[in-house]
């Protein structure tokens, strides 16, 4: 392990014989592990000598399932991976297939994609904040965050029909257009949101207990973070200014004006501050997206890929034939391979789709950011105490659905 770990001087890691060390399993069923994660902790009293994650308790075989489903059926599976950011998963997969098909997405669809994805990012960060604070001991924040999240879930349910598994995007655009009155409801949410974020700051940021539990804990330097493949807020909390929305822009993100928050302390506190500031930045992007909404089509002009309008299907013969073929047989995607990265709420979510020319993919692989972020846990948790492990896991913002797929 690297020597750049910042162990406070009073906690010296001494190599003691085995009878003073104890190996316990912070088991798959644990309230603070945010899912079915098992940690093998080698403890010397209260101090952690080594923490090794043991994953796979939620392995669902999703990547194999993709190979048996047509491309548009796969969208439903992506919801269940990172189930706190399902629209982000949908977006990554759909964009990868659109890249293979080389389809142009209309302007309104892209704006709505940005709008809903940023709302989803706020919702994901709210769950992170609620559960992280709950683990550290602040139960009120949990209830407040879920209250705010209900408002966002109402919006997403109005647009797509699903609270937690929307599957709103389709290959070539969206499932359907936004309902009437949606912009007004989003504006209502926007008006009250910044005050809620300030409320969270009042409860946590100035709180000395929270500060003492998070500052100096879980240190990882910038070089180590890049070497371990961290991305997203974990990397930005270590001072590296990297955001896929800026580096490899997609869905029109280059046209939006937002900051990428970075902090330089490299600890749990820095990651907390980065995510809090990101919530405000997402709020900004949603405002801009709302002002950019213009009437227009939400599906691309690709009759062999995109389902036609219901009225057109019922009155025109070719639309009916296309609808039937797309649903029954799927569309052939030209052979090739593509890796599409997006900035999900947890980091770089990359989708690798390999097609061999048929209606079902040959290989779909999701590079889950939580999978890679968790692999850095042993490095971050050397010399800390058991309670700090809880704080570190919270700050990594892991979702086991994405890790185990």
């Amino acid at each position, binding site marked *: 392990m690297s020597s750049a770990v910042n162990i406070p001087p009073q906690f010296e890691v001494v190599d003691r014989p085995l009878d003073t060390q104890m190996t316990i399993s912070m088991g798959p*069923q644990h309230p603070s592990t945010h899912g079915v994660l098992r940690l093998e902790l080698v403890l010397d009293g209260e101090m952690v000598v080594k923490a090794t994650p043991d994953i796979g*308790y*939620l392995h669902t075989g999703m990547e194999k399932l993709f190979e*048996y489903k047509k491309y548009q059926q796969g969208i439903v599976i992506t919801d269940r991976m990172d189930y706190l950011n399902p629209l982000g998963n949908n977006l990554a997969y759909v964009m990868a297939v659109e890249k293979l098909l080389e389809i142009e997405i209309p302007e309104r669809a892209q704006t709505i994609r940005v709008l809903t994805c940023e709302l989803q990012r706020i919702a994901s960060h709210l769950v992170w904040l609620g559960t992280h604070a709950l683990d550290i001991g602040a139960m009120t924040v949990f209830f407040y965050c879920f*209250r705010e999240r*209900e408002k966002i879930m109402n919006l997403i349910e109005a647009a797509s029909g699903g609270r937690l598994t929307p599957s709103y995007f389709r290959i070539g655009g969206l499932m359907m257009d936004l309902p009437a009155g949606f912009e007004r409801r989003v504006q209502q949410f926007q008006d009250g949101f910044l005050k809620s974020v300030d409320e969270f700051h009042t409860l946590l940021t100035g709180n000395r207990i929270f500060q003492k539990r998070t500052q100096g804990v879980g240190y990882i330097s910038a070089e180590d973070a890049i070497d371990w493949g961290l991305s997203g807020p974990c990397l930005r909390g270590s001072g590296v200014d990297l955001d896929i929305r800026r580096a490899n822009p997609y869905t029109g993100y280059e046209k939006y004006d937002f900051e990428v928050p970075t902090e330089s302390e490299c600890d749990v506190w820095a990651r907390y501050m980065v995510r809090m500031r990101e919530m405000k930045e997402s709020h900004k992007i949603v405002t801009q997206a709302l002002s950019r909404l213009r009437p227009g089509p939400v599906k691309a002009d690709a009759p062999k890929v995109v389902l036609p309008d219901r009225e057109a299907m019922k009155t025109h013969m070719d639309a009916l034939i296309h609808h039937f073929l797309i649903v029954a047989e799927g569309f052939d995607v030209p052979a090739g391979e593509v890796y599409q990265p997006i900035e999900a709420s947890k980091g770089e979510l990359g989708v690798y789709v390999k097609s061999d020319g048929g*209606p079902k993919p040959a290989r779909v692989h999701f590079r889950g950011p939580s999978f890679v972020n968790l692999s850095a846990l042993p490095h971050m948790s050397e010399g800390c105490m058991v309670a700090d492990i809880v704080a570190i896991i919270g700050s990594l913002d892991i979702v086991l*659905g994405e890790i*185990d797929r």
Partner: protein
Amino acid sequence: MGLENIIAEALPEVLTTRLDSLINWARKSSLWPATFGLACCAIEMMSATSSRNDLARFGSEVFRASPRQADVMIVSGRVSRKMAPVLRRIYDQMPEPKWVISMGACATSGGVFDNYAIVQGVDKIVPVDVYIPGCPPRPEMLIHAVMMLQDKVMKESSRDRRDVPEREAREAFVPGTLPITDGSTAESSLPPEARPYSIASRHERRRSS
């Protein structure tokens, strides 16, 4: 368990019904769930406890982390093969009386995931009292399921949960090896290694493309 059974065996039958109502009312009004959130349904379970749909109104005041202090195990989420023995162990660690709610399509029957990694229904591992469909079910559905479980609890009788005599308890089956579901007898008579699993998944059986 002990006190209720001692009183129940001592009383004549007409009075045990009164005792049953009292015991069942007490049990149903304070069903404390054990946290067994696995996947997406766990988030909806958390939403069911949050301020909009408040599950605590119905008696589920706290979600105990330790199964030894819990009454209900709400299996919310897909159960993978690696997790299944852990699930059984947590179930065994819960003291009687205990109930199981299988929340969501994945816990009930394997859901969308008809493949090598997911147990097709948690009732292959633990006995389930209430099944909730949905992917994920709305928090209101979870509340409805808890209320259905409460109705089920009200109908129980203290004579059903009698203490087992000590000798019988010691010779009982090792937990986890009882055949839980009434599967086909032909399947269970073969040794596990000889049972070929040649049934293709419905995804493999689709004729189109």
